[in-house]
């Protein structure tokens, strides 16, 4: 079943990082400084480049969807109204959407649906989050209270703990090893090092990752994504407008979404995410594509174990073989499989919750049109896949994108 034609016609992406503080970087002699900012300026940083890229003005944007996962992080209620006002899309419908860490892709899916329905022709999906000004304990609290408040949270199950329950189970059932988990982080940091917009541009070794401080064993520091500030925007348009305004539209040719049980213990296994399997199946079916057609993929690597499960759930390797596939360099550009998270992923590029799913699509656009930094550019990439997960599979969106 083909889906209505809607394209990405403009992209914008802020620097991810500790944007509450001035960032100064010197990577291989290339010096850069980024100013300290709030959600207001971060929204500007991603939105204005996006409309400029689309070659339009605010007059052309008919409505907006704002992705912010937890308003408590910004201390601002009704934050969609604030962001829409800040960037100047005033007097036009706006709304905030929230599906935890999948908020960004849900903002795109919501805008897609409003265009596909025929209600609007051109829309903006803006995702933003400022997370670093709160303490790590409070940030962990804000993410952990999304566990079942009666049966999970009071037992001290933090957000990383959910994924560590998967990791320990997968080690026992599938023979997943510590080195295989670390190999994912090594890859993420390798590519993130070359991404100018990434939060933590530092190469790490298997030994660094194996010996890092424990967070929720079996998961250690380098198994866990970053807590970041950042924003990303895409401009979406229907077929008629997209063809008029853009010489390089990136079409959403496949779209899948799913969910899963609230409690981790109500699932049939803890070695994969059923929500990802179902969303991927729907996305492949709607696009007529399969895993072997994908040239570049962005998977939700909130934890190393999540990326390994995604390899299997999206069909890049056999079930139970995700760890082995990593060791065989399956997810590398010069490897035998599908290049995955060549932007650094949530691990190195960062994870500003509401922006993350949009940031994946922004980088997919760069890869498909060949404008990424050369060390991390996939040659001749045409078909891209983006996979964004909220919680541990309670919300999943998968997009297939093609020029």
């Amino acid at each position, binding site marked *: 079943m083909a889906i209505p034609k809607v394209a990405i016609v403009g992209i914008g992406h802020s620097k991810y990082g500790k944007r509450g503080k001035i960032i100064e970087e010197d990577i291989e002699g290339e010096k850069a400084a980024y100013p300290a900012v709030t959600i207001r300026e971060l929204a500007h940083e991603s939105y204005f480049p996006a409309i400029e890229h689309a070659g339009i003005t605010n007059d052309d944007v008919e409505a907006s969807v704002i992705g912010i996962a937890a308003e408590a992080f910004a201390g601002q209620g009704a934050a969609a109204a604030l962001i829409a006002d800040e960037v100047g899309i005033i007097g036009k419908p706006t709304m905030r959407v929230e599906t935890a860490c999948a908020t960004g892709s849900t903002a795109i899916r919501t805008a897609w649906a409003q265009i596909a329905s025929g209600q609007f022709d051109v829309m903006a999906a803006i995702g933003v989050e400022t997370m670093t000004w709160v*303490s*790590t*304990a*409070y940030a*962990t*609290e804000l*993410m*952990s*209270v999304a566990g079942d*408040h*009666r*049966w*999970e*949270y*009071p*037992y*001290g*199950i*933090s*957000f*990383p*703990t959910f994924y*560590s*329950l*998967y990791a*320990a*189970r997968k*080690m*026992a*059932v599938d023979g997943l090893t510590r080195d295989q988990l670390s190999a994912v982080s090594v890859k993420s940091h390798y590519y993130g090092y070359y991404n100018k917009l990434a939060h933590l541009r530092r190469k790490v070794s298997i030994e660094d990752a194996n010996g890092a*401080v*424990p*967070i*929720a*064993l*079996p*998961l250690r520091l380098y198994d866990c994504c970053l807590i970041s500030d950042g924003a990303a925007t895409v401009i979406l348009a229907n077929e008629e407008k997209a063809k008029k305004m853009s010489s390089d539209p990136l079409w959403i040719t496949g779209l899948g979404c799913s969910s899963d049980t609230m*409690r*981790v*213990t*109500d699932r049939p296994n*803890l070695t994969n995410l059923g929500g990802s399997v179902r969303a991927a199946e729907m996305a492949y079916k709607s696009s007529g594509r399969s895993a072997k057609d994908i040239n570049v993929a962005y998977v939700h690597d909130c934890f190393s174990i999540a990326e390994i499960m995604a390899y299997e759930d999206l069909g890049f390797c056999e079930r139970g073989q995700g760890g082995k596939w990593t060791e065989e360099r399956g997810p590398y550009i010069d490897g035998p499989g599908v290049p995955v998270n060549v932007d650094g992923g949530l691990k190195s590029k960062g994870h500003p919750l509401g922006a993350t799913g949009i940031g994946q699509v922004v980088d997919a656009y760069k890869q498909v049109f060949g404008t990424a930094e050369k060390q991390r550019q996939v040659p001749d990439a045409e078909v891209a896949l983006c996979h964004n997960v909220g919680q541990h599979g309670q919300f999943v969106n998968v997009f297939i994108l093609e020029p």
Partner: protein
Amino acid sequence: MSEPQLGLVQELSTDVKHRQRMTAEFRKFINGLKEGKFLATECKSCGKKFMPPRFTCPCGGKDLKWFEVNPEGTLYTWSIVHFAPEGIAKKTNVPYAVGVIEFEDNLLLTGHLKGLTSKPKVGMKVKIEPQELDSGDLAYFIKPA
């Protein structure tokens, strides 16, 4: 802080933020704990069993019966938490362990895992026991059998 105080929070708690309303069904589970019983439910329409107990079934069934679960099982998976969320960090020292116990009928339940003398092992024999926290709340914990 000595023994971690981790578990179900009920009306007795002064921690308003994390208070759970005591629905009639939840009270039945808690009253079961008072008698040392772990109560689960089974759908009379499709036969599916639920722990924690559910009061409606995804099949559409609204008639569920209670049954008592054998508290002995095996360790399905585990975690040792070194960084606790702020609300939990106020109540307990780190690290603490979390386990998932697998009862008969493939029923799973998460809980605080106590009494470890070495690294937990998936498949090890464990059992679950009721526990009264210092707050007066009734909870349960998992320990090696």
